[in-house]
C-alpha cells in the first residue's frame, strides 16, 4: 500500500480528477494549501506596504492506493497537471502501514478500494 501525495496548481484540479477517474482511481482527498517552490511566490501590496515572496495557493491531493495502482495514479496526475512551467508541483509516494475502513473495520489492501 502506498500513499500518493501530490501538490498541484489549483486550476489543474479538475483535469487531474478526470485523469484519475479514467484510471479507475475514485477515492481522493483534496485540501487547499499554501506554498512555493522555484516559482518563489508573488508580490502583494497593501496601502503601499509591499510584501514579497508570498505563498501561492496550491492544491494537495492524497490518494491511498494498492501497489498496482501506484503507477497509474502517478501517470494520471502528471497528465492532468503538467504544463511545463515552473509551479506545476510535485508528487510524493510514501509507504502506507495500515488502512482501516471505519464502517466495516476491514483492514489492509481490501479497505483501500
Amino acid at each position, binding site marked *: 500500500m502506498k500513499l500518493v501525495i501530490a501538490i498541484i496548481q489549483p*486550476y489543474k484540479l*479538475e483535469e487531474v480528477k*478526470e485523469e484519475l477517474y479514467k484510471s479507475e482511481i475514485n477515492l481522493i482527498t483534496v485540501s487547499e494549501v*499554501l506554498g512555493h517552490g522555484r516559482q518563489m511566490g*508573488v508580490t502583494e501590496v497593501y496601502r503601499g506596504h509591499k510584501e514579497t515572496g508570498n*505563498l*501561492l*495557493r496550491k492544491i494537495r491531493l492524497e490518494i491511498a492506493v494498492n501497489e498496482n495502482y501506484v503507477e497509474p495514479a502517478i501517470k494520471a496526475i502528471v497528465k492532468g497537471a503538467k504544463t511545463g*512551467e515552473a509551479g506545476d508541483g510535485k508528487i510524493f509516494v510514501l509507504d502506507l502501514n495500515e488502512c482501516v475502513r471505519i464502517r466495516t473495520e476491514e483492514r489492509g489492501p481490501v479497505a483501500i478500494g
Partner: protein
Amino acid sequence: MINGADTVFILFSTSLVMLMTPGLAFFYGGMVRRKNILSVLMQCFIALCLLSLHWMFFGYSLSFAPGNVFWGGFKWAGLSGVGLEPYAAYSATIPHQAFMIFQMMFAVITPALIIGAFAERMRFSAFLAFILLWATFVYDPICHWVWGEGGWLKSLGVLDFAGGIVVHTSAGIAALVTTIFMGKRKNLEHTPSPHNLPFVVLGTALLWFGWFGFNAGSALAANGLAVNAFVATNAAAAAAGLSWALLEWIRNGKPTVFGMVTGSIAGLATVTPASGFVSVMSAIIIGVSASVLCFIAVSITKPKFKYDDSLDAFGVHGVGGILGTLLTGLFASKAINSAGANGLFYGNYKQFFIQLFAVIVVVIYTFVVTFIIYKLVDVFFRMRVSEKDESMGLDLTQHHERAYTVLE
C-alpha cells in the same frame, strides 16, 4: 421654479442609482472565482470614479447639450452653463445640476454592466481605455439620440423611460461583442464559477433597491408617475424572480437561489424602459416574459453557441433591454403617462415599429462602434491578460492583492 420635494427626490434617487454600481460589483463579484473578485470590484468602482469625471468634463455635454440631432457637442463641457437654475427642456422643477448628476449615475453603471462579459480575463489598463472610449463614443451619442434635446430617435417618438435602449440594450450588445472577440476563459470546462452566492444575493438586493431610484427617479419629479414607475418596477422584479424559480423547478428539478436572483435582475432590466408608460398589471406580464426569454438565452441558447459571456451581461441585460423596449411598444398607455404614447395593445401599432426601429439602429451602431473600440484598444493595450496571469487570477496579477487569506 425649483420645487423642494422634486429636488430632494432626485438627489435621493441619484444616491440610490449610485449604490447600484457597488451593488453590481457584488452581484458580479460573487459570480467569479475567488482569485478574481477584487478585479471585478475594482473595475466597477473605478468606473464610478473615471466616468463621473468623464461626465462632468464632456460626457454630459455630448449627451444632453442642445447640439444637433446626433450629439450634444461641447457647449456644456466642464459643466459650463450647467448651473443651479432649472433647464426646462429636461426638468422644470429641479436645479440643472441635479438632473446632470442623476444622469451621471446612469453613465457610470452602463459601461460597468459590460464587465460581466469579459470578467476574469481583461487587462486593467485596457479596461480603463475601453470604458472611457465606449462611454464617449457609444453611450453619449445613444443617450443624446434617445433622451437629449433634439435627439433624432426622441423626435421619432421612441419611448425609453429609464434606459431600456440607452442602458441595457447598448451595454448588452457591447457585452456580446467583447465576449465574442475576447474568447473563453481558461480552465473553466468543469468548474462552476460562482465562488460566493451570498454576495450575488447581496448585490441583487442593492440593485433592486437602487432600481427604485433608477426608474421612479426617471419621472424627474415626486409625482404620481414616479409612483407608477416605482410600483411597476417592483412588480416586474417580483414576477420575474418567482417565475424563473418556477421554470428551474420544472425544468431542472430544484429552484436555485442563483436562478431566482438572476430572474429578478432580468425583470428589473426589462421593465426599465416601460416602467413610466405601462400599468402595474402590464409590468407583471413584462416581468414573466423577461424571465422566460432570458432563461432561454442564458440556459439554452448560450451553451449552444458556446460563447463565454462570463456573467450573462448579454443574456440578462441585452435580451432584457431589447425585450422591454419592444414590450413598451405593446403595453404603453397614455392613461398612465399622457406625455408618452399608446402601444399596439392600445390601438397604436406604429409605436411598436418605432420601438423596433430604435432597437435595430442601436444594436447595429453599438455592435460596429464597440468592435472598432475593441480592436483599437487591443492594439495599444492588449485586451487579454497572459495565460499565466489568467490562471493565477487577476487580483494578484493586476492589483497585487488577494481578497481572502488562508493563513492568519
